[in-house]
């Protein structure tokens, strides 16, 4: 906490603000620090050499990345549409997009199984095509995309909204088609927000447990493995895996901070 302004009168209100700030900092940092110092370096080394651990972390990374990429390909046109056009029911569409944020995580898994299972026409169609959702990587990516989509869409939409429509209008008047305009003007000005959206959605996906555990206990993503180790062997054996997962999430988080900070500096 930087308190650079000397003119502030330091009354009881000020001290209340500061102390609540300290409580919050401690509340966030204390458990995380404990998590990192509890396992020895040796245990961390052994744990990452454990094939199950390495597999689950790798699975977590690439399913989360796939979820983010799917959000990118399908979400970008919709985000642009929402940023540029007003239409009846736009608020409803925006509300639907944010629904996955509000739904309890296990419910997401149950809902998706309801559609992808044998009792639903859609599930039967998938089965005929040889696509299995239950207990498969496909299933994991499906639920991760479900929970990650709103984060990408909201960030990309905000990015497009920040680009003045007049820039696109001028570009069109100078002879550029809508496609040329998008790739020469809109994208270069909004790519940073799109990247932030990709990182936010993959960060969201990599931490998902509740929805995944319903759809696919196996193959095991890192959060499920951590849960299993905790249930079977206790705290001590789940901590090293958790440290590795947190490290990877932190890398994503720092990338995000660097990118967003640079953006504010540029403006």
């Amino acid at each position, binding site marked *: 906490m930087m308190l650079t302004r000397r003119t502030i009168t330091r009354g009881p209100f000020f001290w209340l603000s500061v102390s609540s700030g300290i409580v919050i900092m401690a509340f966030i940092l204390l458990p995380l620090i404990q998590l990192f110092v509890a396992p020895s370096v040796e245990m961390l080394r052994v744990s990452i050499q454990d094939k199950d651990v390495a597999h689950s972390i790798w699975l977590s990374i690439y399913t989360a990345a796939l979820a983010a990429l799917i959000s990118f390909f399908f979400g970008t046109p919709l985000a642009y549409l929402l940023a540029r056009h*007003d239409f009846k029911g736009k608020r409803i569409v925006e509300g639907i997009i944010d629904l996955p944020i509000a739904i309890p995580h296990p419910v997401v898994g149950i809902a998706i199984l309801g559609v992808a299972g044998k009792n639903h026409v859609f599930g039967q169609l998938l089965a005929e095509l040889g696509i299995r959702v239950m207990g498969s990587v496909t299933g994991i990516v499906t639920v991760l995309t479900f929970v990650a989509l709103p984060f990408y869409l909201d960030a990309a939409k905000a990015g497009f909204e920040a680009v*003045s429509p*007049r*820039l696109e*209008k*001028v*570009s*069109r*008047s*100078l*002879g*550029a*088609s*809508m496609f*040329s305009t998008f790739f*020469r*003007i809109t994208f*270069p*000005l909004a790519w940073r927000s799109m990247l932030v959206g990709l990182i936010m959605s993959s960060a969201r996906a990599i931490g998902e447990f509740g929805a995944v555990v319903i759809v696919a206990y196996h193959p095991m993503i890192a959060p499920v493995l951590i849960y299993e180790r905790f249930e079977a062997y206790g705290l001590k054996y789940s901590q090293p895996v958790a440290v590795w997962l947190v490290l990877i999430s932190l890398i994503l988080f720092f990338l995000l901070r660097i990118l967003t900070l640079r953006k504010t500096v540029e403006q």
Partner: protein
Amino acid sequence: MISIKGLNIELRDFHLRDINLDVAQNEFFILMGPTGAGKTLLLEAIAGLAPVKSGKIFIGGNDIIGLPPEKRGIGIVYQDYALFPHLSVKENILYGLNFHKADKKEAQQRLAQLIETLDLFHLLHRRPANLSGGEKQRISLARALMVDPAVLLLDEPLSALDPQFKADVRAALKRLHETSRTTFLMVTHDFTDALSLGGRAAVMHNGLIEQVGAIEEIFKRPASAFVAGFVGMKNLFPAEFSKNKATFSGLEIELAGAPTNGHGYIAIRPEDIVISRQILSSSMRNSFRGVVAGILDQGFYYELRVQTQEVSFTSIITKSSLIELGIQESADVVVSFKASAVHFF
């Protein structure tokens, strides 16, 4: 050159109704009107950037309603410049050439000429972000004219500029218009810009065109009460006409001509009303005694409200005249104006 026939637009709260307008080749046409009159919407409709409900727009004889904006050959310059922030000044100016087949030599010449006319050479390799408003608007003009459009639409290009840059850009606009074949269509609410740049003008109000004509004409002979008020006719009164006399609120006013309509409006510009302490022996046919009802400091001049019987006239007067005549609130004065200063419609 531009011919608009029966254009109707409905866009959320905005409506343009039955717009008919003809602008000749290489004309500098002015579009005036208060905020919300639909001027920008009309420009964007011509450029293909706003949806049209019905009507036709011809450019050089071709109906362009069905064409996308990039196929219309119409440039647009906005009040807020709309420069591409991620491109250098030079890349901004040359942007349009990516989509136009142009002879290299001709393009080079054109670029050199625009840089020269708009004094942009020292800026070419900078980014637009930290340039002054005047510089930005000159760049945006160069960018629009680089592709040699048939029509250039200007949406209040001078109104965001500081006074010292305004004169620069105004002069640049005049030079560009004189040296190009492009037809200019400019939206403004600044009468100085309109009078110094434009030839003909249209006044818009509530999505309708109220009057089209030479700018001087519009100022001298407004066709409606709205236009009169808009161009600064403060003394606007409904009146009954008989021969070359107008009567209203017990005053009889001599006119320079005989209106054909039995009743309508008369209007007198504040600067055409002379204030004195005694009745003047001059050629002015209309003189009325009154009392000063209000003095408003307008910086370079004072606005005077004079009450005569039922009617309140507005006049303007310099500070020295104000002191010389010893005018203060409720002083007795005489307002006089020539018959030819009275506009009727």
